[in-house]
């Protein structure tokens, strides 16, 4: 699998500025919460700000529980700007995976 992180400044409606994009490929036997959390921690290392991920990616846990597991500020997407940023990360990770897996 491929994890993509987009470091961006966002307004309630739009992505204002993209600071950095990171991709991290990973091979794992199971996709449990620990694997996801380790991957997120690795890919967001040294990036400032709040981590935003989709609820399904974090096994529908409450945001405060994910915050305590990750050990940094975390929230689920609420505004259109946050949803735009997540959609962008999805496209990037999908394209990255395609680049790696397809000959």
């Amino acid at each position, binding site marked *: 699998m491929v994890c993509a992180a987009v470091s961006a400044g966002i*307004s*309630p*409606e739009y992505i204002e500025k993209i600071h950095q994009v990171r991709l991290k490929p990973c091979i794992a036997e199971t996709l449990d919460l620990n694997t996801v959390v380790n991957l997120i921690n690795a890919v967001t290392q040294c990036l400032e700000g709040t981590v935003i991920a989709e609820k399904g990616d974090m096994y529908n*846990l*409450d945001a*405060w529980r994910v915050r305590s597991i990750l050990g940094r500020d975390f929230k689920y997407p*609420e*505004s*259109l700007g946050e*949803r735009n940023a997540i959609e962008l990360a999805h496209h990037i990770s999908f394209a990255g995976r395609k680049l790696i897996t397809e000959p």
Partner: protein
Amino acid sequence: MNNDKSINMKTAVLLLRENPNQAPDPYRMEELKGLAAAAGYRVLAEITQRRGRDHRFQLGRGKIQEAMSYSPGRLIFYNPLSPGQVFNIRSEFSASTIDRFNLILEIFVSRASTRESKLQIEMAKLTYDAPLVRNAISMKKKGEQPGFGGSGAYDESMYQDIRSRIAKIKAALKDVESMGEDRRQRRRELGFDLVALAGYTNAGKSTLLNALTNAGVDAKDQPFTTLSPTTRALDLSGRRVLLTDTVGFIDDLPHFLIKAFRSTLSEISEADLVLLVADMSDSPEILRLKLAASHKALWDCGSQAPIITVLNKADRLEQGESLERLAMVRDLAPNPVLLSASTGLGFVDLMQLLHQKLQPLKEVQIKLPYTSEGMSELSRLYDRSEMLDVSYEDQMVVKLRGKEEVVTRALSSSAREL
């Protein structure tokens, strides 16, 4: 008189199951109470239980027995019920049972007045019922023997009838949708800016439409008063704007209900600007929750237009309190305006912001010949744009200001006729 009325009212007990892994949310029960009142129910009791899902009754047997002790006309569950659970509750407790989705549909059915909204509601209901009917058929067919006593082809055809009715309604709604798209395009060509009023249910969208345009549309303090879009013209210091009131959003609205109301919601996705109305008198947590639900609905609509957040009912708060509340929802409120539709507070700010955010008008100079086509084009431009100057030389030289669509059409017709 009031006593007679309360005796004739339908009665209900509200039930809510909270997930033990998630934080309690008192707003859910409040919302269910508001919906029940809007559907005309007198609430006898509110029962909440914190536990995992019971596969037979959704809640524990004891809680349902407690609800039945009030002798209600109906049990209303916040959580979605499976067909099996409805069957079990009906057969064990002889209680009429609905869930939140069916309660919303009940409100919609009682308020629907146009053919479009009736079709949308029928489609939502059939889409919801189809898998339940399929499930009921498969349960009935279990252990079926060949020959007499079997459910046969009749039950199967019931499911097919539902599917074909859904297909017919879809086709009818597609026509309505394309009519709406044509109408919007025509309005744009006529030089109108399209502005949609969107927001959580009971935020005051219809009241704002009435206050801005003297529309006289039905506006009440209850959820889902508006089910069909209503459009009225607004003169914005020379700019011609069409304001459209739309159906309100609600949290956890099933996706197929959004699909059924797509033609109504397309007014939002195709607008040039969206006025996102929110009720500022709600507590900060609920205001955040409602704004987040509105953002989700706008995302589902595919809206790309700029947004102005109208924080309505600001007159109910002190100035300092309003600003404090605004700071708490800043990340969910693009271009916020504090406003009161009932007192007129903040209207000047809203008008200024509308001017700023609407696409700027273009200024061009064109030449038209002294032919009948040239004259009719000039007449059309007088109707659809702001004429800055017309001079009659060897040709008519027209200087105008208007929307991009109007200007582009004027330029192409000028080039064609010369």
